[in-house]
Structures are given as structure tokens and as C-alpha cells.
């Protein structure tokens, strides 16, 4: 394995001539790196949308708004157009067979189905 790794140059080169700062210098041995980059959520908070001019496009305001049409409802199991909702599990269904099935589902699986359309109960 080693020979192949060496041949394929998958060893981290200690220095690269075209770089001003070498990776090894950036992260000296023995020092923990931690996480130094912000997640998108934090970046967006830091960008502070309210301070940006509203007439200029930015990452937040080009996001498409919610639909103005009523959403179609589909069976959570089979994907068929679903006229019914089970009041107990809150799952949508279109077929009595599916209804019998969802009534037998353990809570965990019900939540799994709900999570598919971001409707699951999230405990924090």
C-alpha cells in the first residue's frame, strides 16, 4: 500500500514552492486546530441582512419566497395525492390500506415519515 501511496503522491508534501505559508507552519505540531470556520448560519448572522441595502441583491434576499399557491398534499407513505390526514399521527394518506398500516407504526417510524417533509417533532 505504501508504495502505491508514494507513487500516487498522496503523501502530504512538506513544502510547496508556490506557497507563501506552508501548511506545516500554519498548524504547528502538537497544537490543536479546533474549528476555525463559521457555519453558514453564523455567516448569515454576521452579514446582518438588515444593514445591507435592500435594493441590492445579497445572498439572503435572492432566496425565493414561499409559494402563494396552496400546497398539494401527498400521502406520506406512497406519494399519492392524499385527501385525508390521520389525526393521531398527523400523517397524510390516500388509501385505507395505508391508513391501517400507519395506525400500526411505532412512533419512531411515524416521526421518520414526518421528517421527510420537515414536519417531525424535533426535541432540543
Amino acid at each position, binding site marked *: 500500500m*505504501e508504495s502505491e*501511496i508514494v507513487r*500516487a*503522491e*498522496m*503523501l*502530504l*508534501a512538506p513544502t*510547496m*514552492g*508556490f*506557497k*507563501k*505559508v506552508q*501548511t506545516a507552519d500554519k498548524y504547528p505540531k502538537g497544537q490543536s486546530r479546533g474549528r476555525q*470556520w*463559521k*457555519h*453558514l448560519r453564523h*455567516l*448569515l448572522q*454576521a*452579514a446582518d441582512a438588515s444593514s445591507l*441595502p435592500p*435594493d*441590492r*441583491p445579497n*445572498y439572503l434576499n*435572492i*432566496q*425565493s*419566497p*414561499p*409559494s*402563494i*399557491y396552496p*400546497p*398539494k398534499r*401527498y400521502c406520506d*407513505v*406512497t*406519494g*399519492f*395525492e392524499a385527501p385525508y390526514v390521520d389525526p*393521531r399521527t398527523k400523517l397524510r394518506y390516500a*388509501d385505507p*390500506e*395505508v391508513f391501517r*398500516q400507519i*395506525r*400500526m*407504526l411505532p412512533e419512531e*417510524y411515524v416521526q*421518520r*415519515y414526518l*421528517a*421527510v*417533509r*420537515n*414536519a417531525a417533532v424535533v426535541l432540543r
Partner: protein
Amino acid sequence: MVYRIYDIKSETVSGRNTPPERPAQAYHVSEPPYEGYHAVEQSAYRNTAPDSAIVIDNGSYNIRAGWQSDRTPRLSLPPLMARYTDRKLNRKLNFIGSEIYFDGTARGQAKNLYEPGSNIINNWDVLEGALDYLFIKLGIDGSKGHVDRPVVMTEPLANLQYSKRTMSEILFELYGVPAAAYGIDSLFSYAYNGGRTGLVVSSAYTSTHLVPVVDSKPLFAQATRLDWGRSQCAEYLNKLLRAKYPALPGKINDTQIEDLVRQHCYVSQDYNGEMAKYLDWTGLEDRDVVVQLPFTEKEVVQKTEEELARAAEKRKESGRRLQEQAAKMRLEKLIRKEQELEYYKDLQQKLATATKKDARTMLEAEDFNDESHLERKIKDMERSIRKQRNKDVGDIDEPEEVPTYPLLDIPDEELDEEGLKQKRQQRLMKSNHDARTRAKAEKEREKARVAEEERLDNERRENDTEGWLQERRIARQNMIQRIKERDRLKADLGNRKSLASQIRMKNIANLASDNPKKRRRGGDDDTFGADDADWGIYRQIATGDQSDDEEEEDLGANLKNIEAQLLKYDPTFTEQSTQEAQQDWTKSVLHSFLRGPWPFDPESQRELNQIHLNVERIRVPEVIFQPGIAGIDQAGIVEIAEDIITQRLSGSSRRDEMLKDIFLTGGYTHFQGFEERLRNELRAVLPADISLGVRKAKDPVLDAWKGAAQWAASPTSRQSFVSRAEYHEKGADYIKEHNLGNAAF
């Protein structure tokens, strides 16, 4: 998930669906390959002019890079990096792009350049690793101490200021590039395909953008992003499959899911219509894709014929022994009961002649309240004996002649010890024999009664067929109703909040309490058990298998019986109408959904490790048209386009011109049917007199890079590059606007 597994009967019944042939070859999931060593090519670096730019399309699916003079990108790699110290080799290893598929450890350690599900970079170490790799492979040897070529790079529409600044810092301060320029991938692709005025619809790996362009100038104020792309499709399919097959033994990883999305999903032209018919039996074998995951078949030990026969014989023998024992026990119990009954009857006779006071003492001695109590007891016992006699009590064909018991008539005093013993035995044998004869007689009577009933029934049928049939039909309905109720009760007991459960809890609490509350009117003295029905409470609170009392009738068998009669005599009642046929798996939507049009054998490891893609094939790519079905609270692609065209640009004089060129680019447009669906839906929402043109990029995936290379090579582009001197003078936020890039703030 709990689903019913239906028996597969071999007989062909009219109305049943016949399963088609199994597909000859199931689809096997595969890993993306390790592509092997990519050689360094220095010739281009040496032979091009010093201002020839390196072009990098920084995509979230693949990073593509090459020289501006190249026709296609030289390098293409997924934005992944794994870097770790191998303890065995004691060396630091570094895997970039598809190199991470080299082995399992590298794969597991791989980090993505992008924030998952977005087009924003969040791991700058990976970016650095990827750029190192690109520059090395493009032949930059570092003899100059920095990267001595300009760089053109793509970035997302309305990129975050922070990302832009960090990228510039890295390019100028870490690599020391002489100049750099940024542009938007979809606009590069549009320009490469000769577009000047139109609506660019770019649906890529992590996001979808719509940008109107007039005279090669993008109208950013109208640009819109939908956070849905192929990576979200994969995630969605993953969630769907985990809900569909919760017990799937194997695991499908993200790249395999992506492969399934790419290979098998397509955009439906009529989503609701197609979905409604998707699981129909006809042609389901063509719509259903069987995906075989790796599995190991359980070893089945093959037994020889002889061994099997021996085992069967052994089983039969022990079964017979058990039956014999049970019959003996039943017989003994029956005899005991008969003796008890005799005793009580005797008591009853004695009571008739005794004085009132004596009678009272006698009754109290036997724990009876009064005479009617005794009568009831006798009646109950008679009933139970009659019932028991009908059961098997081991009446083998006995010798015809009645055995004699000579010792019984001799008084005890005349017998010696041996004789007494024999007498006891004979008495036992006699009672055994008598019990059997009585049981036999009872059985005969029962048989006669049943025969008589049948005769009457037949008579009724012949005389009044319609009435008889009607009676049967009602009986059948009742039976089905009772089965349903039983099932419902069972299901309800599983739910702690149901009424059935609550009542049960109350009953248990009441039974356990020291001074149980009386719900019925009556005295305070505890008379529990005085009425036989009182014991029924224990049947009510028992759940599970214990509740299957011997008294409970076999509802299923009864239903079958009635259906058999109906089948025989009712011309309108066919095989199809039987309950069993209606529960046939070939008619089950859920079976089709989970297992396609083929029978399912839960014992087979092969079939347990299969997943069936059917409705998912259209359900997954549909989300871009209806984001709501995946819980995304955004407008769909057609609604966005409609809004841009009919609302936000309604006053524009160039609107009609724009509609003649709706330009599709990005990997999502590779889905079969995407272009057609978009065209049809736009046609439907736009005024009829407007002419509409929809076209797809020549290469929706690579044209962004090609456009960027073309732009970099054009003489006019250089004035939009920011030089290193300008960077140092004006700061990291400084950019120069151009038609294919983001606007400055």
C-alpha cells in the same frame, strides 16, 4: 415497519394478478472508482504565455480546472479532502478529490469543501488542499516562489462578502497570484452558448438560480435562488428509503444514493396523473427498479431424504404420545367431574327427604347458599361434562365384549390385601370404561344433532334459496365485522390513550384495590364470583396470547366455512369476493410499493437486501416544481419564473424577447423530461400570444468552465481582473464589475 406478508397460493384463482417474471438483472449499487494517479503536465505551463490564466470552476459537485487555452477542463475532482497521519507508516497522508476512494479510511475521513446543502464554502483547509493539488497537477513547480499565473474562478450568485474576501486573501497572500477575477458559473455557461437576452435557469448540485439577462447584462434585482439541487434530491431519497425500509440490514451511502438518483429518477410530465397510476399492476415490472444491495445468503443445511423421513417420524411419534397423554388427562378429569356430579345429585336427593334444619346444615357444609345455588351448580357441571365428552378422551376401538369386574361385588371384609388392591384397580378400570362409553354416546348424540341441523338447513335452502342465501350473506358480514372489531380492539389496546386501554387500566386498578368500588347497585358484601360472569373480567384485562381462550371461536375458520357455502350455492359470489382474495398481496398497494409486482420471501437474504424504486423515481425530482412536498417553504421553479416574467418584469419592453430564450444549464437539467416539463408548465402560465423558446446548454455541466475559459481568453476581460497591486492598495473587498460577475456593493 409492520406489513402483512401474504401467503402465496399455487393454485390459479380467477381475478388474481399473476406476478410477472423477475427481472433478469437487478441494479447493483456501485462506489465511484478511485481514478488512479493523475500525472503532472508541465508542457502547458511552460508553453503558454505568462498571462495565460488558470480557469477554475469551483462547483459543489466537481471542481474543474484547466488553462484558458484548453477546450475542456484538464482536471475534474469532487470537492473532498482527507488528511490524516497513518500510524503504521508514520507519514501524513493527503487525499484530494477522487483519491479519497483509494481506501476506506480515507473515505471515512473525507471532508467537504462546502457547507452541506449550500453553495457556500465553509472548510477553507479543503479549499487550500484542492488548490495545492490543482496547481501541482497543472505543472506549477514553485521555482518562482509563487503561482505566477492569473486565476479566473467561479463563485455563487450574490456570494457572501466574507467568502469573497477570504478567497481573495488566499489567492493573493497565500499563493501570490498576479491577478484574479471572479464570475458566475451560469452566466459563463449562457455566454458560452451565445445568449444575449434571456432567462437563465441554472439548476445545479446544491441550488437553483434564475437570472434574467438583457443585452448580456444580468438583472440581479430579479435574480432568485431556490435551495434545491441534486444533492438535496439525494438527501430526500435517502430519507424516503429509510422510512420505506426501516429494517434494511445493509447501508447505502451518499454516493450510492446519488448514483440511484442519477440513474433512475426522471421528471414526470403529468405528476399527479402518473403518480396515481404508478403502482397499478399493469406494467409495474417496467416502472419498478429493483436495486440489489450486497448480501450474504444464509447457509441452508441440506438434509438427506432418509434424515428428513426419520425426523418426521420422530416428530409424529412424540406428537402421538403427547396426544395420548392429553387424552388420558382429559379422561381423568372427566371421571372426576362425573363423580362430583353424582355426589351433588345424591345430595340433592337427600335434601328432598331431609328436614329443613338438616337440609340447611348439609347445604352450609358444602358452601351453598340455598338449594337453587346447588341446582345451578349441577346444571353447570352437566353442561361442562357434555362438552368435555365431545372432546377426544382416547377412545380407541375397544374390544366389543364388556369387561367384567368380578371383585367389585364382593364386600371388602372378604378380601385379603392383594384382593383389595385388585378391587381398587378394577373399580378404576370400570369407571374409565364407563366414562368412555358415556362419552361415546354423547358424541353420537352430537353427531346426530349436527346431521339433523344440516338436514333442516338443506331443506330450508331447497325451499327458500333466496332467503337462505340472504341469511348466509348477513352471517358473513357479521363475521367480517367481528373480525374487524377484534383486530381493532387489539390495535386499540396497543395505544395507551385509547378508550379500550383506559377501561382496561381502570379495571385492573379496581381489581387490585383493597376495597373495590362497586359500579353496580347492591350491597356492600363482596359477592365476586357468585356469578360466573364475574370471572369474565380477567378475560377482558388479559392482552396478547393469553386472551385466546378456548371458548373463543375461531372466527377465521367460521368465515371460511360460510364463504365455502356461499361459493357453492350463490352464483353471484365468486372466488374474487372472498375475504382472502381481497387480502391477496397482488392487490395490495403497499406490497407493490415495497416489493414491486413480485412475491416476497422474508427468509431470503437476497430479497431482504433489495430495495424497490418506483414512486420515488418521479417523487424525488418533482420537488423542484413543488418544494412543499419535501417541506421546503419556497416557491417552485415555475412559480419563480412566472413571477419574474409576469410580475417583476411586466413593465420591461424586453420581456417578450427574453421569453424567446429560456436557457437551461446545470446538472439537474440532465433529468429526463426536465426541459419538456418546464416548457409545458411555462406555456400554461404565460399569456397565449407570447412565443416561448426553451433550450438547454450544449453541455449543461461543462459549459460553465468552457465559458469561463473563453472569457479569460478574450482580450476585453483583462480589464476586469484585480491585480496584486490593486489588492494590496484597495483591500480584499475590492472587485471590478463585469457582465458575467457579481455586482459590487
